[in-house]
C-alpha cells in the first residue's frame, strides 16, 4: 500500500478506521499472548492514534520504507511495539505472519521498536525519554532540506518524568519547529502503578504551554476527535504542537483496562479467549 498522497482526499470513514483499529487490537493481544511477553496496555491505548496517522496522514511508502522525504513517525515509548507492528503490517510494510515471531530470536519484530530490524520503524527506542530529541533532529533536517515533511512523535505520560523530554520540549519551542507534532498518550498508568501514585504530573497541558508549545486535549479513543486533532496540529505553523490524548490503558479488553498489571504482561490462554470475544 502506498500512502504517498496523504491529505484528506478520499479519507476513509471513521467507521472504517475504527474497524482497522479493532483488527489491530486483536493483533496486539494475540501477538503478546503468543510471545508470552510484551506490552499490551500502552499499545491498546495508543492504537487509535496510530491508525488515524498511518491510514490518513503519514506520507510514507511501504514499498520504499527508507524513502528519504517520508514523514517520520517516532514511537518514543518503544515498548508499544505490538501497536506499531500491528499498524505497520496493516499498512503493508511486512506480512502479518511476521507478527507471530514477535520477540523470537531473529524476528524482525523486536521486543522494542528498532529501525535496524523493522521496515517502517524510524527510531530505535526502548529507553524512554529520547524520542522527542530525535524528532527535533529529524525536524532540523527537514528544515535544512527545505522539505515539507512532518515529524510526529508519540510519548507516554510516565515517560514525561524523564528530564530529557523537557530539555527537548524547551529546544523545540526555542527553535520554532512547526514541522514537529507530538501525541502524549495520557493513559495515567506507567510501569509499577498509576502515574499519580508514582510521580504526579500535575497540569500536563499547562506544562507544555509553559514550555512554549501549542496544546490541545482530546479523547484519544474518539476517532473523529483524533482526526480533527491531526488537522489542528497541521495548522499550527508558529512552532511545535502537542496533543494530550486522554486514553485508557488496555482499551478494548475489559480486564486490561485501567489495570497496571497489564502494562507489560501477556494474557493467559483463557484471557486471550475472552479478549478475542470482546474485540468483535
Amino acid at each position, binding site marked *: 500500500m502506498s500512502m504517498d498522497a496523504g491529505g484528506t482526499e478520499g479519507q476513509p470513514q471513521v467507521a472504517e478506521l475504527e474497524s482497522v483499529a479493532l483488527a489491530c487490537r486483536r493483533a496486539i493481544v494475540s501477538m503478546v499472548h503468543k510471545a508470552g511477553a510484551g506490552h499490551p496496555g500502552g499499545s491498546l491505548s495508543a492504537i487509535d492514534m496510530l491508525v488515524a496517522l498511518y491510514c490518513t496522514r503519514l506520507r510514507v511508502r511501504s514499498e520504499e520504507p527508507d524513502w528519504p522525504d517520508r514523514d517520520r513517525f517516532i514511537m518514543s515509548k518503544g515498548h508499544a511495539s505490538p501497536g506499531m507492528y500491528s499498524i505497520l503490517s496493516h499498512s503493508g510494510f511486512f506480512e502479518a505472519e511476521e507478527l507471530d515471531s514477535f520477540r523470537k530470536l531473529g524476528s524482525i519484530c523486536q521486543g522494542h521498536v528498532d529501525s535496524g530490524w523493522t521496515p517502517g520503524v524510524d527510531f530505535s527506542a526502548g*529507553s524512554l525519554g529520547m524520542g522527542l530529541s530525535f524528532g527535533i*533532529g529529524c525536524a532540523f533536517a527537514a528544515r535544512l532540506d527545505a522539505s515539507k515533511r512532518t515529524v510526529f512523535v508519540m510519548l507516554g505520560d510516565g515517560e514525561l518524568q524523564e528530564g*530529557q523530554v523537557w530539555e527537548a520540549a524547551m529546544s523545540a519551542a526555542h527553535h520554532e519547529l512547526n514541522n514537529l507534532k507530538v501525541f502524549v498518550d495520557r493513559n495515567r498508568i506507567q510501569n509499577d502503578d498509576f502515574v499519580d501514585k508514582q510521580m504526579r504530573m500535575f497540569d500536563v497541558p499547562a506544562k507544555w504551554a509553559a514550555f512554549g508549545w501549542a496544546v490541545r486535549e482530546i479523547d484519544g479513543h474518539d476517532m473523529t476527535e483524533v482526526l480533527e486533532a491531526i488537522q489542528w496540529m497541521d495548522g499550527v505553523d508558529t512552532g511545535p504542537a502537542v496533543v494530550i490524548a486522554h486514553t485508557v490503558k488496555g482499551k478494548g479488553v475489559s480486564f486490561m483496562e485501567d489495570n497496571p498489571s497489564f502494562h507489560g504482561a501477556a494474557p493467559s490462554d483463557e484471557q486471550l479467549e475472552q479478549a478475542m470475544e470482546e474485540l468483535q
Partner: protein
Amino acid sequence: MTALVASRDGYGEGLMQLADDERVVVLEADLGKSTKSCRFREMYPERTFSLGISEQNMMLVAAGLASSGYKPFASTFAIFTERGFEQVRNGIARPNHAVHLCGSHGGLHTGTDGSSAQSIEDLAIYRTLPNMTVMHPCDDISTERLTVLLSALSGPSYMRTARNKRPRIHDDESVAALRIGKGHVLREGIDVALLACGVLVGEAMTAAEELSRDGIEVTVVDMHTIKPLDSALVQRLAADCGALVTAEDHSIIGGLGGAVAELLAANCPVPLERVGVNDTFGESGDGDELLEKYGLNSDYIIAAARRAIARKA
C-alpha cells in the same frame, strides 16, 4: 622554536575545512567557545544548532540529523558528554548513526577547573560501545586532519581534545600520512616502544630523547586512535622491541593502556608498563603541575620504560 598549540583549536579548524560539505552540521551545548565549534557557528549559523545546556538532548538531536542524511559534529566538554552516555549508547551507537562527538578539556591537564571538569574515563567508556571509533589526537594540526577524515566515517565516533597548549608534534608531511585506526610512528628504536595519546605524546618524545642520551633507543607512536586499536602495529612493536609502555592523561583502567594490555595478554604477552592516572580523581592546579603530581610526565615515562626493559626475559 616549536609552536605551542591546543588540540581543541584543531577541531575548530577541522570543522571550517569541512564546511564546504553542506551535509556537515554542528551541535553545541553552550560550550562552543570552549570546544571551538564557535568558529563554524560564526560562519554558518544556519547549520549550527544550539541546544542550550542539555547534553542528553543534544545526543539524540544529532542522531535524528544523522538518520536524515546529515553529518553531525557535536561537542561539549569530555566530562559532559558522559551525562549523555546512555543516550550515546542507545541512541547513537546501537543504531550506528554517524554522529561525531568531540569531548574537549579531557584529562587532568585541563587544570585549575579541578576534578569535576577532568574526565579521566571517557576513552574507556566509549571504547566499550560497539560501532564506536575512539580517538585522542595530540596536537592542533593532527586533530584538524583527523576531524576532516572523520566525516567520511559511516559510523559514530568520539574524539577527545585537550584544553591547554603544548608543543606541536606533527608537521604538514606527517599529518598528511595520518589515518584513522593507524598509529603514527614518530621515532624508531628497538629497546622499548612508547605508545602515547594526547598531551602525553609530547612527554613520550621528551622521554625518548633523554633515554637516547643514555643509549636506550625508543620507538614512539602517536596512538591517536584508541579504537579500533592498531593491533598489527602493537604486535609488531611487541615482537621488535619486546617491551611496551603506554602513556595517557586518562585512568590506567580501560583506556589506551587497557586496550593494549588486552591485546598483548591475548596474543603476544610482553612486559607492559602503563603510565596513566592511577584510579584516583584529580584536583585543581596548573596542567603541568598535575602531570607531575599524578605521575604522568616524561620523568615517569622514563622510569616506566626502564622498568619495562628490565622485565624483558
